């Protein structure tokens, strides 16, 4: 049993699970990932139906509801915020189950089956799920289909869109507003010039491959602040692993090159 569990768990981001641990014992950490693999209550129900090989046209409501509730309880225990849509479904399942307990008319017309609506939704969702997979697998532009895009020398007859500095800062403001992890991040002038120098140094090393450390500084024409910024940029590039800085032995020249360049 444990073996099937781990097999199933290993495939979490890929296809639907092939094995469900019958006893539902899953290490708590794994459970979270496991439940995350479901796209919602319908997905979970479909999974249970498939797993237990239940007949979708004649769903044993008691069984299904019980199994479903076990999962929902687990979810409630660890991920309360997830439970909203799932709880709604629990209510629906219980309602269907109780309606089925009511005395039936002698002749059951199919539309009267309290399960009909649920079955219709499950079938529709499964059909969508399958075509979504197909769409995902289809080769598409940017992922498997490569379209011609050779170059030609544009003569600028068409005016490209005009963009003001204001538009740009406005865009940046939007980004900041959305990216919550940027909340405390300040981008000041000092940091910007370091970032600019980082790009400049990379560009230079791309064309000249290897430079002696001192060549990166124009001591004659750059003022002290600029030299410092340049030095900070080199440190930052080294920290991000973008540069390789080498020295054969103490006091010999220090060489700087792009990391990964032969």
């Amino acid at each position: 049993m444990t073996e099937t569990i781990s097999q199933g768990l290993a495939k979490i981001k890929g296809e639907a699970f092939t094995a469900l641990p019958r006893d539902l014992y899953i290490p708590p950490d794994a459970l979270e990932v496991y439940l995350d693999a479901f796209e919602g209550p319908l997905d979970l129900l479909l999974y249970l139906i498939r797993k237990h090989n239940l007949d979708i046209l004649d769903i044993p409501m008691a069984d299904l509801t019980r199994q479903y509730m076990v999962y929902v309880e687990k979810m409630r225990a660890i991920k309360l915020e997830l439970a909203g849509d799932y709880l709604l479904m629990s209510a629906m399942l219980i309602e269907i189950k109780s309606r089925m307990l009511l005395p039936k008319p002698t002749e059951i017309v199919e539309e009267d089956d309290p399960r009909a609506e649920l079955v219709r939704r499950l079938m529709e969702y499964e059909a969508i799920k399958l075509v979504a997979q197909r769409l995902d697998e289809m080769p598409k532009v940017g992922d498997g289909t490569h379209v011609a895009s050779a170059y030609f020398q544009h003569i600028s007859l068409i005016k490209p869109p005009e963009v003001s500095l204001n538009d740009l800062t406005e865009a940046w403001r939007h980004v900041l507003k959305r990216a919550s992890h940027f909340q405390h991040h300040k981008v000041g002038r000092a940091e910007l010039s370091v970032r600019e120098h980082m790009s400049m140094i990379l560009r230079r090393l791309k064309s000249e491959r290897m430079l002696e450390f001192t060549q990166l500084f124009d001591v004659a024409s750059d003022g002290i602040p600029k030299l410092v910024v340049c030095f900070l940029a080199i440190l930052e590039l080294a920290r991000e692993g973008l540069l390789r800085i080498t020295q054969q032995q103490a006091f010999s020249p220090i060489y700087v090159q792009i990391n990964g360049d032969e």
Partner: protein
Amino acid sequence: MSETSNIRELKNVLEVALLTSHQPLSLDDMLRLFAERMERATLRMLLDELRQDWAERTMELVQVASGYRFQAREEYTTYLMRLNPEKQAKYSRAVMETLAIIAYRQPVTRGDIEEIRGVTVNPNVMRQLQERDWVDVVGQREVPGRPSLYATTKHFLDDFNLRSLAELPPMEAFVQTEI
């Protein structure tokens, strides 16, 4: 005086235009290439010849929803993928299912999508699809709140190598498994 003296020359112009265009060219686009008037039938014939000229070569001339384009033959995909190991991030299941619902059930509202998937639609999902230009708003449903109606775009068809929605893979009915 004809500016393009012969068929070879006309085909060359079409070839250059198609090889350098980043997006499919419609017949109207291509007619604009020539200063002189050209019949659509002539253009179609030229395109057909061009496709045959490339039949044994590296690229193929295909037709998608918004027009014609050259694309690499499938057998080269393995090589080309190596060029950009920086893989395009895969879309999540939520994104693909939402796309599928819009593609197969369009036009739909967010409410419709939520009804089918049984979960709330994350606004980020719609944003991704709209930014990719696969989906856009085509109107509002005339009910309280006038919710937006979403549909797939021509660009979606182009990107998925389709000429029309009719070419989408067919929806399969629920299959009872044996397992």
